[in-house]
């Protein structure tokens, strides 16, 4: 079936079987491989993307569900000039990246939270990350990075 939606700021349409997940369509039809397959059952969050600003596990969402909606993947997070977003910079500065497999989902989970509040408590950040597993970092520097990016945005605003 024909699915039309907004992907990383651009209107797109794709002809794909209706039973495919959003993750499969993103990876196999749009060749956007930033969203990963980690478990296929919605437990690990490596496939996370934002749909209308909400963090979802794209491995559990059928692609037709995003018709007429906006989807943001990690590939759409950076500014158009190729530089890094403030949150991506914070991930690097605070050492929040190790193997990197969870990182796209973590950045998007951070963006989803910072859209709600720029001054989250550490507990709120941890709750916002609870659906994204990381086996390397122990989460601490990811929490640090999101808190710092929020504080920086607060200051700019």
């Amino acid at each position, binding site marked *: 079936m024909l699915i039309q939606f907004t992907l990383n700021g651009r209107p797109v349409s794709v002809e794909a079987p209706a039973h495919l997940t959003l993750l499969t369509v993103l990876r196999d039809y749009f060749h956007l491989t930033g969203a*990963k397959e980690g478990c296929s059952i919605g437990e690990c969050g490596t496939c996370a993307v934002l749909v209308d600003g909400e963090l979802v596990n794209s491995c559990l969402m059928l692609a037709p569900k995003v018709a007429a909606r906006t989807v943001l993947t990690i590939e759409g997070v950076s500014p158009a000039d190729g530089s890094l977003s403030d949150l*991506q910079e914070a991930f*690097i500065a605070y050492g929040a990246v*190790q193997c990197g*497999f*969870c990182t796209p989902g973590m950045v998007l989970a951070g963006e989803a939270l910072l859209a709600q509040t720029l001054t989250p408590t550490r507990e709120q950040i941890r709750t916002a990350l609870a659906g994204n597993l990381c*086996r390397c970092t122990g*989460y*601490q520097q990811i929490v640090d990075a999101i808190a710092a990016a929020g504080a920086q945005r607060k200051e700019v605003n």
Partner: protein
Amino acid sequence: MAGRQFIGKPARRVDAADKVTGRTRYVADYQLPGMLYARCLRSEWPHAVMTHLDVSPALNVPGVAAVITSADFVDDGRFGFPVRDQYILAHERVRHVGEAIAAVAAETPEAAAAGLHAIRCELEPLPAVFESAQALAPDAPQIGPDRSDGRHPNFLHSEIVRLGDPDRALPQCPVVLDAAYSVAQQEHAYLETEGALAIPTPEGGVVVYASNQSPFINREILASVLGLPADRVRVIQAPVGGSFGGKDDLNYQASAQCAALALKSGRPVRMTFPREESMIASYKRDAMHMRVRLGALPNGDLQVCKFTGRLDSGAYASQSVFTSWRAAVHAMGAYRYEHCHVDIDCVYTNNGYAGAFRGFGNTEVCFAIEQAIDEMADALGQDPLAFRLRNCLRLGDETAFGQRLEESVGLAECLEAVRKASGWDEKRAAYARQPAGPIRRGLGVAAVFHGTSLGAEGADYAASTISVAEDYSIALTSGLTDYGTGAATVFTLIAAEELGTRPERIRLLRPDTNTSLESGPTVASRSTMLGGNAARLAAQNLRQMLDFAAASLLNCPQNRLLRVGEAYIGPSEEPATWERIVDHARSLGLILSAHGRWSAPHIHWDSQAGRGSAYIAYHFGAHVAEVTVDMRTGKTDVTGFWAAHDVGATIFPQGAMGQVYGGVAQGLGYALMEEARYEAGYLQATNFDTYLIPTAKDVPDITCILLEKPYSQGPFGAKNVAEPAMVPAAPAICNAIAHATGRRVRDLPANLERVLLGHALSHSDGGLACKIGLARPR
């Protein structure tokens, strides 16, 4: 550090920009024209003989391009070191559920699955053993290979440590402890599952991209089982999405399966594992049963340790020979004794096999000894932290196995650091007085020592190449892999420091058996010391050429040269840029290319005597955990954590701290929730809905203290950190639970029922199947 530009200063991880943008491509992200998808048929029985295997029907399935079995490999694809007991694909017998039997490559994953379905495979089940205690019974079915020494074939290996005569000394000790402990298998749970991509070359060879730890070991196995000369096999390290010891054997098997299918079909072949297949097929941390007997004087002086452990290696040996040695060397903990015997035995069973996992034996034995030390302190009526300080190894002491510690010993300082940072004395006193109620709080401590690198396990060396490219950037290689640890950044910072160039000028190329130098395995927290020293020597060798060229250009002796940033300055005080020096060097005919190789000092271990120098240096550390236990449910929350580690020196601070935070989190999972439980050989948790690992909500904010007792042979004094960061976390948490509840959990994991009831509840017998269609035939 005085005068250092980059070492120990905040730095940008060299591969971080690609990772935060999603540009890093892991094996599953690789897509080539004409690429086939591979999948394995796996055993549904824990132990069986293959009575019939006919793969030809698979070739009639539309889309299937090639099928392979053990017959497609030299010597049936047998491999393994030091025990050669594994096969790339099962040969005649299967010894665990999930063992690969045949592999299919097809146009689509669906066609590959249909091809597997068409294979005719008949397995006749054999009697099996699942309890390590029964593995050596005279009538136990044979799992391990034939032995020529008359021992039971299910006996794999044993290691000992010997000091004095504990059997005579123990009964004379006024205070004695005798307790049994056990740890369960643990799943690595790297978020990227296994994968490999093989591409046939026009010369009849193969190029393999693999999510492996040690590309040179992979090449050696590939060349051997494919019957190809080493120069026809090239392994290029793909980015690795987490490993923790877990990306060895299974990735080598997948690499060889893909390579054989690629050679047979003439097309690129990729294999990636769904999570369930990864968990079922992959090796685990070994389960171990341990008994600890300690003897002490009433004043608190430890006298005797007698430690026995039985390690379940599962169906294959993998690394268990080495794991049991590291376990034996560390089993008594970082304490002084008059008498100490350690005996670690490992045996084969028909459980999934055990292999390398962060800590490598020490994580297992530390759980036992560090709880036993606490129980002994209790018996003596002493504070457990003070008791450790009284008995811990210090500079100049001799270990129980007879090694004098001559430098870089920071254990007492680590214990003092966590005592102060955690508010130990005040909190221990306050929690001892807490009113009875459903919510109990507790504080626990554990210490660790952990030998750096391979030690007397084997030849210990690493090598790097370095060269200046046409665009004046610097290409650096290492034979060691950064699978998330930050080693690539460590090597870059070390080379930048030696050369006096910006780290951004250096490009660390990925390990590639055609372009980097063989450096042994990427294991044992050895990258910073071994790989770091190699990078340092390579950079020093390149620096000599650049200094020579600068002195020539600036017309002065080398000792008159100064550096301002990357530029050189001579007596005329006119700076010469990096580019000018490079150009001048080239005009002199110098090839700006160098290499460095570093070998660890030789040490000797006498395995018959159970004594010797085990490792060139030791990491020391101490953890304090604070817990809250709900006495109505058994739920334990870790509410505070303090970790002090003597790393020798810190090269890349965010990376070192990340290792500590991540290690603590893995230890927390090991302590409270993780259990890769086999029931009659069938793994019971096969995805993250049933195999729970800590989330951001489960891990508290951790206070990390890096102490620096420099080691003279380490690069800038650095030792190791990755494994010991995990090792003492679980016993610290269990000691805190005992402090909170007055009850001790001696078997991991300390889940709700063990904390609440003191024992595990029996589970249903409905589990004799794993997902992915591995249902037990009925």
